[in-house]
């Protein structure tokens, strides 16, 4: 999923860097005292998760954890991801500096979408099983979304979108399921033990009602 240097074209690099920076700015504005340690821990987890690789076919994949970051951080996932991705590029050589914006977007957009679609629905009185499945779907969807965003950036730079997105998605099918389990379990666990750690509305405020819940 890490797009390395030398793949993306100049305009795509510029656009993705701008959008990524905008995301990071929004995230920084929403970062408060209680979110900083969370952001740090999740950034560390994301940073290390990329080292645990499962070889599948011609590619090899790893957990992304961006859905999880969405649940815990909301918009603040953007700066956490930017730091972790920058360090991965510098220390491990995964991804690249010019493609940092594209990679931040590929991970950050699913995180924020996951937050708005599922994170905000978590209520304090929700049953553990429901929370688990919300987390599962959020985590699984975030991987698919990350594939789509990475595919779009590759397409914008001139590659066949379907081939690229298809190749990434096929490589990530096992990850979709595992990611769903990890995200679901973690969200359900924290929801039970320390619900205030989630980025969703505070336990005191009633959960937002959505017509299509």
């Amino acid at each position, binding site marked *: *999923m*890490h*797009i*390395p240097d*030398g*793949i993306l074209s100049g305009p795509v690099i510029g656009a993705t860097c701008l959008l990524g920076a905008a995301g990071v700015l929004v995230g920084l504005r929403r*970062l*408060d*005292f209680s979110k*900083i*340690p969370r*952001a*740090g821990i999740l*950034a*560390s987890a994301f*940073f*290390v998760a*990329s*080292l*645990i*690789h*499962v*070889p599948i076919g*011609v*590619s*090899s*994949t*790893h957990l992304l954890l961006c859905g999880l970051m969405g649940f815990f951080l909301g918009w603040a996932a953007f700066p956490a991801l930017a*730091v*972790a991705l920058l*360090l*991965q590029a510098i*220390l*491990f*050589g*995964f991804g690249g500096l010019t493609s940092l914006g594209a990679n931040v977007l590929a991970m950050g957009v699913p995180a924020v979408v996951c937050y708005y679609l599922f994170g905000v629905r978590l209520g304090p009185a*929700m*049953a*553990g*099983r429901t*929370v*688990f499945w919300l987390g599962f779907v959020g985590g699984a969807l975030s991987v698919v979304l990350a594939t789509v965003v*990475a595919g779009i950036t*590759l397409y914008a730079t001139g*590659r066949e979108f379907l*081939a*690229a997105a*298809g*190749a*990434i998605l096929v*490589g990530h099918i096992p990850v979709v399921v*595992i990611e769903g*389990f*990890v995200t*679901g*379990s*973690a969200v*359900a*666990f924290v929801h*039970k033990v320390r619900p205030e750690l989630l980025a969703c509305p505070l336990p005191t405020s009633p959960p937002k009602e959505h017509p299509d819940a």
Partner: protein
Amino acid sequence: MHRVSTPPAAFCLTLLTAVCLLMQTNTAYAHKLGLFATAEGANIRGYAYFSGGARPRNVTIEICGPAGQKLAQVKTNEKGEFVFAAKHKCDHVLIVRTADGHQGRFIVKADELPDNLPVLPDTAEAPMTYPGGRQIAGAERKRTIIELPSGTDRHEPATATEIRNAVAEAVSKQIRPLREQLDKAQAQVRLHDILGGIGYIVGIAGIAFYLLAVRKLRKDTRSSGPPTP
């Protein structure tokens, strides 16, 4: 109380799976597509790899000249290896790409290739000749592995260039495992990289705390500032 028996069980299961996967893969798989190649005689031989071990099969390797002009392309075999017969003595830039946006590069320096290969036309400063002044014939240019002919087949002794090439090829074959090992060691993610990265994150979180605290302090002093007349 919520009914939460399933999620912790699933959590444990996932953890267990992760641990099993870790044990199975044994090494830390780095998500980076790499390329390694050396010249043996005029043959550039190498392989593509995801650092950590897995090798991509059937991927295209583009071979370019020093100025980026495309010279040829080869595909990796079932073991992720490839061979390419160099036709010119110049830097060869090898690029591997997979459909999902991974890319690796490796440069085989001109020095590694035998002297009797012609210089690449674009960059040719000297005429394409042997040191002895003999023009290189087409058939000779194609020949990729220089073997020392046995005495009975030839009347003249092996030329200095041929001996030099044969020795260079033998040495390159001998030191190849060493270079592979070195390349592997360089591509490996080390513990201090991981710890260093986590340290950076902790440090950045600390700075964020500090900046927020400064902002809050300023706001507090402004709102409850010194009493003004």
